[in-house]
């Protein structure tokens, strides 16, 4: 077990090294430089000043040295400071974006799991019924729906025609004057549409997955046995089948944890939400290398951790693996 864990950890470090190296090279070898944005706007800039700027940002050194310097800092969990004019530490810029994105994702993930599991079970146990066919159509639509288009339709309906919901931002102008329940309602109203749109996509995928997992389990011999010994159908489905059908769902749960931190660039832009996606978009547009690298690295660490978490959950939940 310890051998297995240490091997996994070594793989984790190696993969992480590969990811950061690859991202670093892609970002730094792309044509153009962050200093272009500062200098192109200023016609009076001299080549010397440009060189000075590049030296200041460490962009004059060979790329491999730049990477090693970056990696040396990252080991100490220092993400460096932003290239943008505020020069704030990268970690600070990222940290302040986390709460809003994570809340949106957490709520929608909760909704996805709460809704998808019963939907999947219901359509599997009533295969080819009207309900099953209707959800299949719904799933296909959900898969194929461009999320940002759904977002525009929601804005049109709830914002423009009905005037029920604000179409942008996370707080009203009079937010600070509101009472506590008023504040909660205000934020919920602002986040309702983005949560809804985020939920739809995940719902389609997970309910489909739940359905096929359930269908597979229902055909197993032990389900036939359970029925044969005269258990009521409810017991068969919810005690025997569901538990086993949920195993692969646990893997998905583990895998989607890193996604909690990743904000949708497009949706956050449409709804004017100051989250992780918007930060990423801004840093990409202004070539803020340290912020981009910071976000990609955090994303990669979480993805890898999610993979390990999924394995671990699976091992805990599946008695066959627990014994090994």
């Amino acid at each position: 077990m310890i051998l297995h864990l240490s091997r996994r950890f070594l793989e984790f470090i190696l993969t992480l090294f590969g990811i950061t190296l690859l991202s670093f090279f892609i970002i730094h070898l792309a044509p153009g430089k962050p200093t272009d944005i500062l200098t192109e706007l200023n016609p009076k800039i001299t080549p010397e000043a440009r060189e000075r700027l590049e030296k200041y940002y460490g962009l004059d050194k060979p790329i491999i040295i730049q990477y090693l310097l970056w990696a040396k800092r990252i080991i100490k969990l220092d993400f460096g400071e932003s290239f943008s004019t505020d020069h704030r530490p990268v970690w600070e810029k990222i940290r302040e974006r986390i709460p809003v994105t994570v809340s949106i994702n957490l709520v929608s993930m909760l909704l996805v799991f709460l809704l998808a599991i019963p939907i999947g079970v219901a359509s599997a146990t009533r295969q080819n019924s009207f309900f099953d066919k209707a959800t299949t159509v719904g799933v296909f639509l959900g898969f194929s729906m461009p999320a940002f288009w759904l977002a525009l339709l929601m804005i049109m309906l709830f914002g423009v025609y009905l005037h029920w919901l604000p179409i942008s931002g996370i707080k009203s102008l009079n937010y600070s004057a509101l009472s506590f329940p008023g504040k909660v309602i205000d934020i919920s109203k602002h986040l309702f549409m983005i949560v809804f749109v985020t939920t739809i996509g995940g719902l389609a995928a997970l309910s489909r997955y739940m359905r096929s997992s359930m269908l597979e389990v229902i055909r197993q011999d032990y389900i036939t046995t359970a029925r044969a010994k005269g258990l009521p159908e409810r017991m068969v489905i919810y005690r025997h089948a569901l538990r086993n059908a949920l195993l692969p769902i646990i893997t998905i749960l583990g895998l989607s944890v890193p996604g909690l931190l990743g904000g949708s660039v497009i949706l956050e832009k449409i709804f004017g939400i100051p989250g992780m996606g918007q930060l990423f978009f801004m840093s990409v547009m202004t070539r803020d290398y340290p912020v981009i690298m910071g976000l990609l690295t955090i994303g990669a660490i979480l993805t890898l951790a999610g993979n390990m978490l999924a394995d671990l959950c699976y091992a805990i939940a599946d008695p066959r693996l627990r014994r090994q």
Partner: protein
Amino acid sequence: MEGNSTSIVSTWQIFIKNRLALSGSILVIILFSLAILAPVIAPYDYDYIDRHHILEPPGREHLLGTDDLGRDVLSRMLYGARVSLAVGFVAVGIATIIGIVIGAIAGYYGGFLDRLNMRLVDIMLSIPGFFLILTVIAFIGPGIWNIMIIIGLTSWMGVARLVRAEFLSLKTREYVLAAKAIGASDFRIIFRHMLPNSLAPVIVSAVLGIASAVLLESGLSFLGLGVQPPYPSWGNILTQGQANIEIAWWLSVFPGLAILITVLAYNLLGEGLRDALDPRLREGR
């Protein structure tokens, strides 16, 4: 040979019986015809500006209305169909070729090459995909060719895994061993003998891949990183749609509907092909 032709026939029959798949393929054919015939059937040129009809709702002169410069939305959407279909095909073509090569090498040779290639797959899968695409596009500049190439370069991992798995199981088949015994080159064994026998799942994943490439392109164009105006794409018409959301619903509704239908068509086709090509799944669905 005979066995082969009957399996094609039965695949075809199952495919025809599958109504979802059939409607998917009919939709794809219609979309392709519209895209190819765009210059013939579009009522206006995509950049023809009608200064007297700016932001006009759908009507007799402009069936789907006009945009904020007075251009005909229907005509722009027809030309935009060309973008979506081209991006889907080229991007997936690139991804499939890379995936086949990497997966085949890993599965056929095994050992160090296998570990190396699969580690590369893991690395690529651990980088948030959309973030990576966005970064590269923002740096090398927007444009339809850049988008095709970048989507292709970042979406080959699934194919690589599929091909590797198929090759691992085919590697010990008698016909492969026989080909080796008579001294066929590795290249010949991989491409003449093994690849044709592992194509079924690759085709399915390619068709489903087109669906996600079309979605990606529309998203990037919506952000202004894809097809550049004045050339239309469904994504960049939607950008105008958001800008005029309070006054011009038709700019948001129609292009999005076109994306939805296209992606849906490919998804239906892909799922249908999966059912028809993979006998193991036939009973399950």
